[in-house]
């Protein structure tokens, strides 16, 4: 299944919305968008995961890398409204407490 990725800018952050499956095939595209926006270094970055139907370890690794880059740059990085399947994989990875998770988009 393909992954649709949209980005928009708010006053305080960049928002990236992923829609579909995040796996070995699609995670490089999500990684590219996240790292490109973080490289601007001007605003926090939020990833809206409300419509991600499936995420594997490569998707989790993409989020971890984004968080690391943001931490090093001292900009914010947060996840928004992760779907049930995303929450399950973050819990399985024991990483759910590592990310700032916001409930609403």
């Amino acid at each position, binding site marked *: 299944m393909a992954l649709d990725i949209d980005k928009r800018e708010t006053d305080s952050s960049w928002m990236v919305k992923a829609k579909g*499956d995040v796996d*070995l095939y699609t995670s490089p595209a999500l990684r590219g968008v996240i790292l490109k926006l973080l490289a601007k270094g001007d605003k926090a970055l939020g990833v809206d995961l409300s419509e991600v139907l499936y995420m594997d*370890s490569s998707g989790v*690794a993409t989020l971890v*890398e984004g968080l*690391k880059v943001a931490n090093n740059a001292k900009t914010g990085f947060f996840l928004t409204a992760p779907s049930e399947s995303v929450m*399950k994989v973050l819990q*399985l990875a*024991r*990483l759910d407490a590592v990310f700032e998770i916001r409930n609403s988009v």
Partner: protein
Amino acid sequence: MKRPDLHLEFRSDPKLLSCVRALTRRYLEDLGVDAERAGNVVLAVDEACTNAIRHSYGGRRDRKLAITIRPNADFIEFELCDNGVPARADQVMRKELNPCDPSNLKPGGLGIPFIYKAFDEVAFVPGKARGNRVRMRLRRQE
């Protein structure tokens, strides 16, 4: 040996993983495996394929992978075979995931723990010169 329920050969192309997941999910649904366990198994089978593509085949998309599913009275057995570089024992050993220290985040290293978490029995059998065989067994529930 009894003929397997399913034997699927496919190219080591990541774009085919969604098809493998759909097939695995549907197979488990039809056997009445509950959604929670089925979700974990789908993830684990996907991770085994991902490992083979990334590590055994170094990302090459034109190699062969094969999944075989054999159910019996006690287990549903999934076997994934590749013909790539054999894994080292330390790469496929059981690892427990602990809550992560935010100051020591590392992307990656989750696939193998996900496989062990989903299945009741896991055996990685690297070939002597080429190939890997991963046998993953899910115990059937009443």
